[in-house]
């Protein structure tokens, strides 16, 4: 939920923002190395010098994880209806419009059917750049429907999460998406269809407290922020600094909440291998 505050801090902003004006060179958020966009793209947006995983969006994940031109998008047009007519310092309608214009997306997740090394999968990838990757009615419904697609076609489900949590501007409706998506996953489990959850930086709040934590296999990208409460809130609660590496992928692996950390460059082949085992 803390995407407004987090923006300012050291957590990497979206790749687009880091692109230097001429559009060809990018500075690594971690080591400061100047890298060419083409070079980075070939390297799955992982720093060639320090292995920093740049924050990328659904478009890049589709390219990296799915076979070329295999992605057929579903529910592309679905968008928020602003059911609460929510206004804070800004009108939610305005926030939506601005986000749509800026990102070219209709909401914070894209879903569809694609192939991984020739194997058909139901696929979803979230976009932090769309209102902090927050889950409202649209994200919840699109996730629920892609679960249905996996079930109908008896194909595995892959969800790439990247989200600040449930979307405040849709109030309790956002909250109920946690239950909606988790409930729907029980049908997939009953049908013995594998679900692999990929947790990327950041995955927090209601998204972690629902489908992101419910994979048969949970895979994290290196050093991703993953948790329920945001670090700022926890710090406030306990009144002291948080230990280094707290709520990062490596911490979650140590505590037993993800199965493995996989470098983005090896992610596709790892998923492919796992699907080979699970069916």
């Amino acid at each position, binding site marked *: *939920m*803390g995407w*407004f*505050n987090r923006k300012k801090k050291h957590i990497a902003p979206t790749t687009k923002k880091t692109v230097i004006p001429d559009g060809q060179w990018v500075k690594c958020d971690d080591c400061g190395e100047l890298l060419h966009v083409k070079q980075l793209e070939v390297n799955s947006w992982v720093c060639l010098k320090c292995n920093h995983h740049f924050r990328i969006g659904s478009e890049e994940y589709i390219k990296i994880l799915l076979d070329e031109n295999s992605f057929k998008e579903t529910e592309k*047009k*679905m*968008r*928020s*209806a602003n*059911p*609460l007519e*929510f*206004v*804070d*310092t800004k009108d939610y309608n305005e926030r939506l419009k601005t986000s749509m214009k800026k990102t070219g997306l209709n909401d914070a997740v894209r879903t569809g059917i694609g192939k991984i090394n020739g194997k058909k999968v139901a696929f979803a990838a979230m976009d932090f750049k769309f209102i902090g990757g927050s889950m409202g*009615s*649209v994200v*919840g*419904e699109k996730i629920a429907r892609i679960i249905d697609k996996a079930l109908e076609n008896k194909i595995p489900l892959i969800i790439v999460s990247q989200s600040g949590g*449930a979307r*405040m501007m*849709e*109030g*309790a*409706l*956002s*909250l*109920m*998406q*946690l*239950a*909606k998506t*988790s*409930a729907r*996953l*029980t049908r997939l489990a*009953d049908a013995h269809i594998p679900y692999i959850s990929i947790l990327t930086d950041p995955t927090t*709040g*209601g998204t*972690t*407290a*629902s*489908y*992101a*934590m*419910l994979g048969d296999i949970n895979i994290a990208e290196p050093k991703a922020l993953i*948790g*329920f*409460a945001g670090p700022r*809130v*926890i710090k406030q*609660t*306990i009144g002291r600094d*948080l*230990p280094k590496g*707290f*709520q990062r992928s490596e911490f979650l692996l140590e*505590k*037993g*909440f993800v199965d493995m950390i996989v470098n983005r460059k090896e992610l596709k082949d790892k998923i492919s291998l796992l699907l080979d085992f699970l069916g």
Partner: protein
Amino acid sequence: MINNILDFEKPIVELEQKIEEMKKLDDNLDIKEEIKTLEEKINHLKKSVYENLTRWQRVQLARHPQRPYTLDYIYNMTEDFVELHGDRLFRDDKAIVGGLAKLGNEKVMIIGHQKGRDTKSNLYRNFGMPNPEGYRKALRLMKMAEKFNIPIITMLDTPGAYPGLEAEERGQAEAIARNLFEMSKMRVPIIVVIIGEGASGGALGIGVGNRVLMLENTWYSVISPESCSSILWRSWEYKEQAAEALKLTAKDLLELKIIDRIIPEPLGGAHKNQEEMAKILKEVLLEELAALKKMKPEKLVEDRIEKFGAMGVYIE
């Protein structure tokens, strides 16, 4: 007592005190007339105050320090309560209580958040903010209920899941996610009642049911008005506006088709008459239970998944 009175309760309480004072006076006919007029005035005042509460005022009532909590309902509504402790993994979380009880002639598993009433008991109950072991205890009890074919009643009243360091270490998110998943497929009836504060995932973590009921003066949303204010307005000062924007009252949620039913409270709120409140709730629960008990296990599961599946508003 006096510091437990909310701003909008003050004029009512003042009038009530005045009457009490006058009643102590002589059996003077004039005074009796005066008392009668005052009592009428109070009734008018109460009705208009409680019918026109703002959303923020409802939030305040939901947090009223005299408000009945889960254990109060259990003691006032049920018999033979046997509390069950622990998640069998780490420890017993005091912010969630649960156990077997008899509600009328029905055996039930009752599970709910539990707040404390003073500093000491609030520390003991962690202000009703569960750690992962609380959700895991709740799940253990629900699975037991399922095993012995006993319906489940959950009571929601929490300012949120505890945002602590150890809670994260032990997988707060996983614990809540697991409950949402497992509650969806329980083969016994589940009735959820919001009895106070329904703050976000910490509340929903025991909130997936066939029926979701809300007491009249409670709130349920994705975030508390204060936190919403601090994030969206970047200040704690806009909690009233945030409460309005979030549409978090029982009436709002009934309109949004998130809850099934609003349970009326005694005039002035549940804290004005705990026994009466418990009696009203007990009747509603027995009525709802009777209907759900007619449903087959597969149907109960299907019903729950479809129920939550229908929640959400979007444009296609």
